[in-house]
């Protein structure tokens, strides 16, 4: 693990250490909480053959949408692609392998890895095609499906505030998968809008304690282009 005193990096150095073909968790639900600056730097850095784990595929032209469009993503583990037609096209054309999990199971598989567990037992999806092929055991007279934990080499997360030890605070609905992923990967790279000295974050407001975080990068605020778009729902 990185020493507390050595976590602050510049963004190019942070993403350059990610290996080709890595499995990478990416925070965010739609735009809020997506680490846009880290993803843009990863695109620039050039690694391919990636497996990404993210709730969704962002929208065309932003976030992981850009990495998918550039052909850098081999496999995507996700819950929903509904807002990204270019990702759906890549999937349908066979250029992108997609593994779907129901959203709550995806979150829990990541949470389990972060908690150091091998998996969990669930009744979600029983009697539907989601549960086909899933191992079952009986406990207390009921059948339960076994869901293994989901691990990754790297997590890219977005926080509102960080200190240079790597303590993190998320804001509003930009939390979503970030605190779960920040505990679940071998290397955790956090971007934050504001980087403070240790002691400046209120200690009872810290969502992710610094022990889980490997590197911290200060970034500019996301552009309005990286906001959500009208969907006419």
């Amino acid at each position: 693990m990185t020493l507390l005193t050595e976590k602050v990096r510049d963004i190019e150095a942070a993403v350059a250490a990610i290996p080709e073909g890595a499995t990478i968790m990416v925070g965010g639900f739609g735009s809020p909480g997506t680490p846009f600056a880290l993803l843009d730097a990863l695109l620039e850095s050039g690694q391919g053959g990636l497996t990404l784990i993210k709730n969704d595929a962002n929208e065309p032209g932003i976030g992981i949408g850009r990495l998918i469009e550039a052909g850098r993503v081999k496999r995507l583990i996700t819950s929903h692609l509904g807002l990204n037609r270019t990702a759906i096209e890549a999937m349908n054309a066979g250029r992108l392998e997609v593994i779907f999990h129901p959203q709550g199971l995806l979150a829990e598989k990541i949470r389990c890895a972060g908690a150091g567990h091998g998996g969990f037992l669930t009744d979600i999806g029983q009697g539907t095609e989601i549960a086909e092929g899933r191992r079952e055991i009986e406990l207390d007279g009921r059948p339960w499906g076994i869901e293994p934990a989901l691990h990754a080499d790297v997590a890219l997360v977005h926080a509102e505030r960080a200190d240079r030890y790597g303590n993190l605070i998320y804001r509003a609905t930009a939390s979503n998968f970030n605190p779960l992923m920040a505990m679940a990967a071998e290397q955790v790279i956090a971007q934050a809008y504001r980087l403070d000295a240790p002691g400046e974050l209120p200690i009872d407001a810290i969502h992710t304690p610094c022990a889980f975080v490997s590197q911290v990068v200060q970034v500019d605020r996301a552009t309005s282009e990286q906001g959500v778009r009208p969907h006419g729902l």
Partner: protein
Amino acid sequence: MASDTQRILARAAREVIPGQIVNLGIGLPTRLFHYLPDEMEVLVHSENGVLGCRPRRDGEAPDHDMIDSGGAYITTRPGASVFDSATSFAMIRRSRVDLTFMGAFEVDADGNLANWKIPGKFSPGIGGAMELAQKVRRLVVLCSHNDKHGNPKILARCRLPLTASGCVSRIITDKAVMDVTPAGLAVVDIAEGLDPADLRAATEAPLLIDESRMGRF
């Protein structure tokens, strides 16, 4: 068509009891948001991690960190909280959400629901629909009674892959309000001016109709 949608939403708003925690599915149910009066003490849950959503008012600047699960900028009402995705789904799986409204491709006489996949045509992933359908205490389906070709969506038995089985309590369409009962679909209300025989003709599932007790909407 617009008036059909408005009638579904106005009827659906009567399902919400003050004091409840309510989730609004993506699509038509999201629009129910605007039928819940500000002063009504209801907390709207959105599975991306917020309890206590409120629609943004005209002229209110968007907060780029504040969306609902459909991807619309929202704001919050007094008593609201925000949390991560694991907590959000724990709330759902522990049935701490009282009521959810969802759209449907198909719904059947046994309360089975199909609303996420049309094999070969539409498969963007299930999102949070499966956990919501299976675990929320009361699920009310809001949908058109027939698809755009006029085919029934209220079936004897769903043919598409299920979201969850036996999960639906009530179905509200432009033509009728129907309850899922052990004896089959019981018509609670029928659309103003619609003949029960025409309702049966537009529905694949057998309907239990007691004209003396049936309301109009």
